[in-house]
Each structure stands twice: as structure tokens, then as C-alpha cells.
């Protein structure tokens, strides 16, 4: 599809999507910006090594999958230390209410496989079929993960006193 690499179009088309996914994951600007650059670097090296995206859709799903992968891997790195608050409102430019923060903290505690499906479905509004294509897993598997994510999240929220009002 895109044989000639146009950096301008690439950045204009995908940078905000990648950034908002990464903001949802890290809730601070610096880590999110690092992820944006890493995704594009990976994209360029993939194109240079001969990868060809057959359709726009495939390209978009690839970018979202790599973004998610890089977010998970960055947090797993042994030298990753969170030296900023859980939600760095100074840098992201918006605030969350107390109950929204509690919800975000609970989502953050989910295992990656549940968290990713949950975020893609509820925060990014992807359909089950799209998530299946992004993560390359079957639709029933997506549904199962989503159900388990909801169950686990409910437990975490109960423990955190989210429903006590």
C-alpha cells in the first residue's frame, strides 16, 4: 500500500492516537511521548526491513498492537521506575475526580492481558471483532478476557471502597 515512507503523513495520522493510548496507560506526558517516538522508530525499521502493510486497517491495527506491546514492555523493564505521581495532572493537562482516579488505579492493577482488552473496549471503543484483529486472538477469547477483566475489576473496586457511598 504505502511504499514510499511519508513521515509527515505518518505522524499526522497516528501520533495523537498513540499518544492518547499511552497517556491512558502511563498517565504522564514523558512516558507517553517516549512511546510515540518508539512506535514510529519501530515502524520505520519494519518498513526498511521490507514489511508491507496490505491495507490501512492492517497498518492501524499493527500500530495499536505495537503501542500496547511497548507500553507493557516499558513498565516491565527492570530499570523502569515511576518517579512521577500516578496521575501527573501537571503534564497531561487534565484532572480526574476522586472516583475516576480510584477506577484508574484499579484498572492499572489488572494483568496486562485483561487490562489491554478492557481499555481497548471501554476507553478506545473498539468492537470485539476489531480487538480480535488487533491482538490476533479469537473473538470468544476477547469476550472471555473482557468478562474476567470486569469481574476482577469489580473485586478490586469493592476492596478499594469504590462502591461505598
Amino acid at each position, binding site marked *: 500500500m504505502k511504499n514510499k515512507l511519508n513521515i509527515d503523513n505518518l505522524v499526522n495520522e497516528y501520533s495523537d492516537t498513540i499518544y492518547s493510548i499511552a*497517556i491512558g496507560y502511563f498517565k504522564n506526558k514523558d512516558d507517553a511521548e517516549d512511546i*510515540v517516538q518508539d512506535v514510529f522508530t519501530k515502524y520505520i525499521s519494519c518498513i526498511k526491513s521490507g514489511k508491507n502493510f496490505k491495507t490501512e486497517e492492517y497498518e492501524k491495527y499493527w500500530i495499536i498492537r505495537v503501542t500496547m*506491546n511497548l507500553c507493557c514492555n516499558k513498565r516491565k523493564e527492570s530499570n523502569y521506575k515511576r518517579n512521577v505521581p500516578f496521575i501527573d495532572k501537571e503534564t497531561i493537562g487534565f484532572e480526574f475526580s476522586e472516583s*475516576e482516579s480510584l477506577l*484508574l488505579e484499579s484498572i492499572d492493577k489488572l494483568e496486562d492481558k485483561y487490562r489491554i482488552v478492557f481499555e481497548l473496549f471501554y476507553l478506545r471503543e473498539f468492537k470485539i471483532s476489531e480487538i480480535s484483529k488487533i491482538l490476533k486472538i479469537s473473538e470468544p477469547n476477547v469476550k472471555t478476557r473482557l468478562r474476567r477483566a470486569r469481574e476482577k475489576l469489580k473485586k478490586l473496586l469493592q476492596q478499594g471502597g469504590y462502591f461505598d457511598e
Partner: protein
Amino acid sequence: MNKMEKDINNIKNKINKAYLSEEYKDDLKNKLEEQLKNSENKINSNSIKSRKKNKVISYTKKILSACAACIILTSCTFADEIEDVMKNFFSNTYKEFEVSDIELKSVDTDYVTNDGISIKVDAYAIKDDSLYLVFNVLSEEEIDECYIDDYVIENEDGEVIFNLNKKNEVNTSVRNIAKNENKKNIIITTRIANSKVNDICDKVYINVNEIYVRNSKNIKNIKYNWRFEFKTKN
């Protein structure tokens, strides 16, 4: 609308409105353009360099063959001492770990053969961020021990998730050798701690690039690309 739905909607609206500043985007574009240029220049300069390199290689080959002759002469004289050193090297390399409580999933890969050595991946397991790989090594000659010296694991997106040969790699690998009665078949189990093979990694590609085999007569170092791929999901 219940509380949770309301909160999710609010979070969604806030996060989805997050955008990068135009300044950052421009800066990023410049960086990426530069990166792209550098990678293109590298390819061009590599083709020019390769011609020069060929000349250098031919001289180097001559020097190396002279050195090899000296080494062979020295080896014949001090064979016993060298064997002891290599034995120590092998015995120190292997760190044992338990695999009895790990549920291994078998993998359907074919043997890849080079220079009398056939390798395939028998099974794998992912547990607590560790990736376990079971290599099956067949040799035409009898072998006492073998050691995979260089292997690289990539995911389906070409991302290197483990590189045994890379010294600054944060991941660590330990191995466990199960010797077989049949001295032509050895099973090597490796554990890669802090593996990046997580649940969203769909497929792995393993490139074994170098292997050492030792028997009572000699030690052989074989370089080749034994490549395997298998799905980590059904």
C-alpha cells in the same frame, strides 16, 4: 447510568482528547526524517564499504591462516591443558534449575540440520515472566555436552525480545542439560528470566546462530542459522 459507567465515560472523554503539541510533532518529524536519512545512508555506504572490505578480508584471511597454523602446532603440544580449560568453561556455564513443576507445551517444529548437527524446538512454557524453551539436539557423532552460544528471539513484529549474545541485555538466561543414554541426542532446556514474551505476543521466531559441541575427542563450534517459528497461542 451507574457510577462506574459514568466514570468510564468521563475518563474516556478526557483521555481521547489528549493530543501532542504541534511543536512536539514538528520536532518528532525532524528526528524521524533524520533517522530515515541515516538508515538510507547506511545502506548506501555499506555497499561501498563492502567492496573495500573484500580487499581487507583477503589480507586478513592470509594472516589468520598463518595464525591458525601456529595455534594447531601449540594445540598439539598443550592438548591436555587446553582440554582442561574447556571442560571448566563448560562446567561453569550451566546453571541448573527445576523444570518439574512447569507445564510445557509441545511444539511442532522440524529438525534443521547443518554440519552433522540437527536442532529443533520440542516444547516451551511461559510462567511468571519466564520463557522456557526445550531444544532437541541430534548429532551424527557421539557428544557429551553441547551449549547454544548465540540465539535471538523475535516476535511477529520483528521486535527482538531476547538476544543471548547481547551483553547489555537486561534479560538473563540459564540452562539445564538433560543427558540422554543415547550420546547422539541431547535435550537443552533454557529459561529466560524477565522475558518479554507476554500474553500479547502471538508468535515467536527463534534464530540459533552458534552452537558448541564437545565429545571425548574434540570440541566443535558450529555457526549457522537454525531458524524456528511457533505460535504461543492456539
